[in-house]
């Protein structure tokens, strides 16, 4: 892999005594989509949350090893976690718009970062909604409440909200698992388009979604990274038997 965005070295994570991630080492390429797959409890979401230090919020968590984003260890004590989360946006399984208008949802991030200029805010809102492919749907109803939108629209609004603070990396934790096939396909299409500008890491239980959307796939099992490779190789000829068993549904 030529252009590495994230280099993970020997990363382990403990919830109290329990080791939930076991010496993970991997490289995540820039401007590609990397899918994390594996059964429930395998550590893929925990790993995803390590990438923007979301696990800091859990008191019992201890992390060892390195998570280098563009060469900088984000767990270094001199690193500002707020800056990290600005740079590394996240979209969750359940869409979580603020109880505000569509416009305010997208403008929220830039606003709390100190931007007050209305013209600039308008511009950011439009660009973000365009990037999230929902500008045409929303442009005439920017003042409507985000809570009145459908699940799929809410999720795409959350993606636009993430894009508004110009991150480099977008983490997606099961972004389409609660959506119907049409909304799912819109999100997947969006992921394809966004990778031109962003590095995307997506956790999904839907194997076909991983196959359709990602360039690389990493298979996690019981806190270990079993195999990582090009998605085409993982889904046609995985090297490890555990991966083969999982993707063909013969696990356990």
């Amino acid at each position, binding site marked *: 892999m030529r252009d590495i965005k994230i280099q993970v070295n020997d990363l382990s994570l403990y919830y109290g005594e329990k080791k939930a991630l076991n010496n993970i080492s991997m490289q995540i390429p820039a401007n590609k989509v990397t899918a994390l797959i594996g059964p429930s409890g395998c550590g893929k979401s925990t790993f995803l949350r390590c990438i923007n230090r979301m696990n800091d919020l859990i008191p019992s968590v201890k992390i060892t090893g390195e998570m280098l984003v563009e060469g900088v260890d984000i767990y270094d004590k001199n690193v500002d976690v707020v800056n990290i989360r600005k740079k590394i946006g996240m979209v969750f399984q359940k869409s979580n718009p603020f109880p505000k208008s569509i416009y305010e949802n997208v403008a929220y991030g830039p606003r709390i970062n100190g931007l007050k200029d209305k013209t600039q805010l308008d511009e950011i809102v439009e660009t973000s909604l365009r990037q999230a492919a929902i500008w045409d749907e929303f442009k005439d109803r920017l003042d409507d409440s985000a809570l009145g939108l459908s699940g799929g629209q809410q999720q795409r609004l959350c993606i636009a909200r993430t894009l508004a603070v110009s991150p480099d990396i977008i983490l997606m934790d099961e972004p389409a698992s609660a959506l119907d096939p049409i909304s799912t396909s819109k999100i997947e299409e969006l992921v394809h388009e966004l990778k031109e500008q962003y590095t995307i890491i997506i956790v999904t239980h839907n194997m076909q979604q991983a196959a359709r959307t990602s360039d690389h796939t990493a298979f996690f099992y019981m806190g270990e990274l079993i195999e990582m490779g090009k998605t085409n190789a993982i*889904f*046609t*000829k995985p090297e490890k038997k555990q991966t*083969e068993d999982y993707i063909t*549904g013969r696990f356990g």
Partner: protein
Amino acid sequence: MTHFEMELEKLKDVIKKIGNLAVSQVGESVKALLFEPIEGKEVKKTEMKIDKLDVKIDEICQSIFALQQPVASDLRFIMASLQISNEIERIGDLAVSVIKRAKNIKEKHDLISKFEIVDLAKEVELITAKANECLSTQDEKTISEILTLKKSIKSKGDIIIEHIIEEMKAHSKVVVSGTNLVIALKHLERISDHCSNIAEYVYFMVNAKIIKHEKHEDLNIDKLE
């Protein structure tokens, strides 16, 4: 067993059936060529059965693709099954053509013994049996034997055909029988080609490597012998 695994088992069963029928058709065609012309009724019936199973394999594969989205070894098995059933169906057709040609070879006894056709015909029977066998065993040694047999059949066939042509040049009365024999031998050679294609698809199924259109000397499987 999951529903998906049951579908795969069903596919394996049908491939086994169609493979056995092809072996029996080739056996009949060799009998017809080496010994006496045989009644076409049974052969025709078997041919129809093969055609039906070929369509059934297409239907099962289509349904698995649409409903189960197979990946990895399952995907390769289904892709290979589609190709293999096509090869087997062609083997069946060629066997019937050999039987038809055999009826028009009047000086059969003389020609067959003169040109050592028995060995060649037995090798074609053997390669078909081995192709059928490797469908279930997926054994690389058998694949290698098939690829070697194919070469042997081709070189034997070329020499025999050359001799038959010489014979036809010298004795015009054998031209009709000779021509039919040459065509029948070419059909047998094509049968062995289809058998080696089957072996290549089985190799792909097991190793995820496409080896068709390759010189098999480059492959490790030749070294298994």
